[in-house]
Structure formats: C-alpha cells, structure tokens
C-alpha cells in the first residue's frame, strides 16, 4: 500500500473541479454567510469589505482579520475562501494555518509586491488567481494556481470587463488549438506563458484547472451570460449584498438578498434554459447601482493589477 499524500496538485485542482457549475459568494459577516449557504452557494469568500466598499472607502486594503474568517468557518458547512494581497505570502501562510479551504490571491486588495506573485506550489491549500488574458492565466497556473478566474472590474456591478477577459482567454484557447506545433514556442514567448502549459492548451483545448468568471456579475442573466460564453462557474462579489438599496427595512433587504442569491444559483445551473432564466429573473427588486467604467480613472482600476 502506498502512503497517504496530502496537499498534492491532484487534491488541489480536484477540489477546484467540485465548484464547477456553482456560485461562490462574497460575504462580510456570519449573517450573510448563512444567507449564501441557504441560497445554494458552493462556497463563500469571507472578507471585511466587499469590492464596492473598497472602491468607495479607498485606502490600503489587506487580508481580513483571521478572527472574522474563523467566525464564518464555524457557522457554515460549505467551504470558506479568503483573499490575500498579490505577492503577500505571509498572509497566505496565516490563512493556511487557520485552515481556510481556498485562497484568492486578489487584485481587489492592494498589491504587496510589484514584481512577483506568491509561489503557490509551496502551499497545501489551493489558490485561485485572476487573469485578463491567456498569458497571465498560464503564468498563474505555472506558479501553482488550482483555479483561474477572470478579473472583471470588481465592485462596479458592470459585467463588461469580465466579458472582455473571458472572451480574450477563451478565444485564445481556440486559436491555440488549431495552431501548428511549430508556432507554439513563439506563442509562449509573445504571451509570456510557460511552454508546457501552452502545449497543454493546444492539445486539450482547456486549462488544466477550472476557469471561473468574476467581477461585475449582478443579475441571473449576467451569470448565465458568463456560463454560455464558456466559463466553469461564477464568483459574485458585491452583486448580492449591494442590491436591494431601496428596501425600507432590514428584513426586507435580507429577503431581497436571499432571493437574488437563489436566482443567481439557479441561473448558473440552468444557464442554457431561457424559460428557467426568465422565471428566476422575475421580481428580484433593485440590482446594485453599478459604475460605468468610462468614469473610472486608471488608478481606480483593479483589473490592471498583477504581473
């Protein structure tokens, strides 16, 4: 009998495979975590400030208090993810030590290193990283990411950037598949991507890890749009808990959050069924207000963070 192996690439990417077809929701406290789990989220992302608030409040944004993350781990039975700053491997060591199930090395927080991302191969806990194009995605996978997501423009409630990044990544994958073998090395060079992973995509037509959409998903239709474009699942950040702005009471607001969360879960599963999409999209109340991207100055853009 062979020995037991923990923290292998297989168990890390295998875990990521289990999230497919599902919705991972940003939550800021125990109450929101409970709403997310009851709505059918496959995991929650625990963070002190959701992207929309990070945008309005500004300042340096860091890993959340481990105590706050542990509170959420205690009350939910589904996996708990949490974010660390790009390149901040000590924040990652801390999250691994408290037993977080997945780490998001995220551009939503203020980057800690302007040149390097975390060497994710060193960790037992799996990582998800954002990407805007195929080269960036393959670099992150090369560093050990077990899941990739588009960057979108988090906290805007505007899906256009997630669409742009998903189309770029998925389009390049198709291009790579039909490319001649002799073109692959130059493609790797031009895109700053590891050659073996370029080859993998050429042969398999997909990444060796799941590929999710994130950033600006605010409605069931947004989630289904991303799924039809060809991603494996969806992250919803501010889209749920920034909705229902016109609700007159806390209980009304909670009901609006819960209805929207459930509808996005249903839409992600039945993304190809317009009748079901119509049914779940009805009477959800007000979506988050959102930001038009043309009004963002370059320093406010999160998607450009990462190297």
């Amino acid at each position, binding site marked *: 009998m*062979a020995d037991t192996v923990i923290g292998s690439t297989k168990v890390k990417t295998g875990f990521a495979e289990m999230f497919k077809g599902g919705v991972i929701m940003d939550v800021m406290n125990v109450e929101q975590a409970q709403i997310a789990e009851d709505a059918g989220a496959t995991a929650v992302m625990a963070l002190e400030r959701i992207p929309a608030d990070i945008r309005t409040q500004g300042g340096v944004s860091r890993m959340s208090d481990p105590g706050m993350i542990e509170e959420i781990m205690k009350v939910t*039975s*589904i996996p708990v993810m949490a974010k660390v700053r790009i390149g901040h491997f000590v924040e990652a060591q801390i999250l691994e030590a408290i037993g977080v199930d997945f780490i998001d090395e995220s551009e939503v927080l203020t980057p800690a290193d302007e040149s390097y991302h975390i060497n994710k191969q060193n960790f037992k806990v799996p990582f998800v990283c954002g990407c805007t194009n195929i080269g960036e995605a393959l670099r992150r996978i090369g560093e050990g990411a077990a899941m990739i997501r588009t960057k979108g423009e988090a906290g805007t409630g505007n899906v256009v950037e997630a669409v742009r990044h998903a189309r770029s990544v998925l389009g390049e994958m198709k291009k790579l598949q039909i490319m001649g073998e002799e073109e692959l090395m130059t493609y790797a060079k031009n895109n700053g991507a590891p050659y073996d992973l370029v080859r993998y995509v050429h042969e398999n037509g997909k990444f060796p890890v799941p590929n999710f959409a994130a950033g600006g998903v605010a409605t069931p239709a947004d989630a289904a749009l991303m799924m039809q474009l060809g991603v494996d699942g969806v992250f919803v950040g501010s889209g749920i808990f920034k909705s229902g702005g016109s609700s007159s009471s806390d209980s009304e607001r909670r009901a609006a959050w819960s209805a929207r969360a459930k509808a996005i879960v249903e839409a992600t599963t039945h993304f190809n069924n317009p009748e079901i999409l119509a049914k779940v999209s009805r009477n959800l109340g007000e979506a988050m207000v959102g930001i038009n991207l043309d009004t963002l100055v370059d320093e406010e853009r999160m998607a450009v963070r990462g190297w």
Partner: protein
Amino acid sequence: MQVGVLALQGAFREHRLMFESFGVKVVEVRLPQDLENLVGLVIPGGESTTMAKLMRSSELDTAITSFAKTGKCVWGTCAGAIAIATEIVGFPEQPRLNLMDISVARNAYGRQVASFEVDVAVKSFETPFHTVFIRAPRIERVGKDVEVLAEYEGHAIMARQANLMATVFHPELAQDARVHQYFIEKVCS
C-alpha cells in the same frame, strides 16, 4: 445503453469523460424529463447543500427517488453519497434522497488542507485503486443489506446495496475507469 450524470453542479464532466472512455453514452441530467431512457444515474461530487437545493427546486429529488425505486441503478460519489444516504450525521434537516441504508458524516476527514490521495484495495479488483479524498464524507454506519467493497482506516469508502452504490472518494479523478466499469457491469446489470 445510456447513463445519466446529474449536472446541476460539481464534477459531472469528469464522470462523463470516464464513461465515454469505454464507450458508454452519457446524458447530462438537469430536469426530471432527462431521466427518460436511462439505465442508471450518477450523482457527482460537488457541494451537497447546493445540489440538494437545486434538486428540490427542479423536482429532481422525487424523480430520482422513483427512478431508483423502479430498480434503476444510482451511484453517488462524495456529495452524491451524502445525497443518497438515509442519514446525514449532525445535519438531520439537510434534504436527502433517503435511498441507501448508510449514515454519512460530512467533511469528517477534515477541511481542504487535509484532503489526500492513497491506494486502496477494492473487492474483486486485482490491483489497488488510487483514491482521491476531497473534504470527503465518512460512512459511519452501513445497514445490514449493504455490502462493503472497500475500506480505509476502518470505515467503508465504497459500498453497494442492490441497485445502489456509494463512494466517498472520487473515481472520476483517477486515470482508471474500473469503478465506472464496475457500476455499469455489476450494479446496473
């Protein structure tokens, strides 16, 4: 012959590829009508609470229960094993299909950082099978009509009861189709 894979959420694609590797046709099941003309159904790994809610809202829960009661074969892996169990330890309120006489405890091998791989002997297999455990549930009790097909650290990890089968590990992530073949040849026949 067509087998269904419940495709509400989770690792359904990996099951499909595994069945197709030895020539079995696969239908993705998202609504009750998708169960027509299938010999059996696999409930894949994923998040058990998510799948339970999606099965309820599409009325697949009652459809799968009657599918199994007519003798069609049903196999649950990981979250799927939780779905078909009669008892979920510590979560008596969690919706389940109540099919197989086993008690399962969710995430009983630990959180993700404790997930592991190990080779295990399986009854009737000539060589060990490489098993992958991911936040796996543990089978705490098996009923008298349940045959244990593989064990790890004193607990059943693969078991069968007539037309039903449960595995708490992930055969769809192995490079080995023997468990999938076993399901088709032994459990569905």
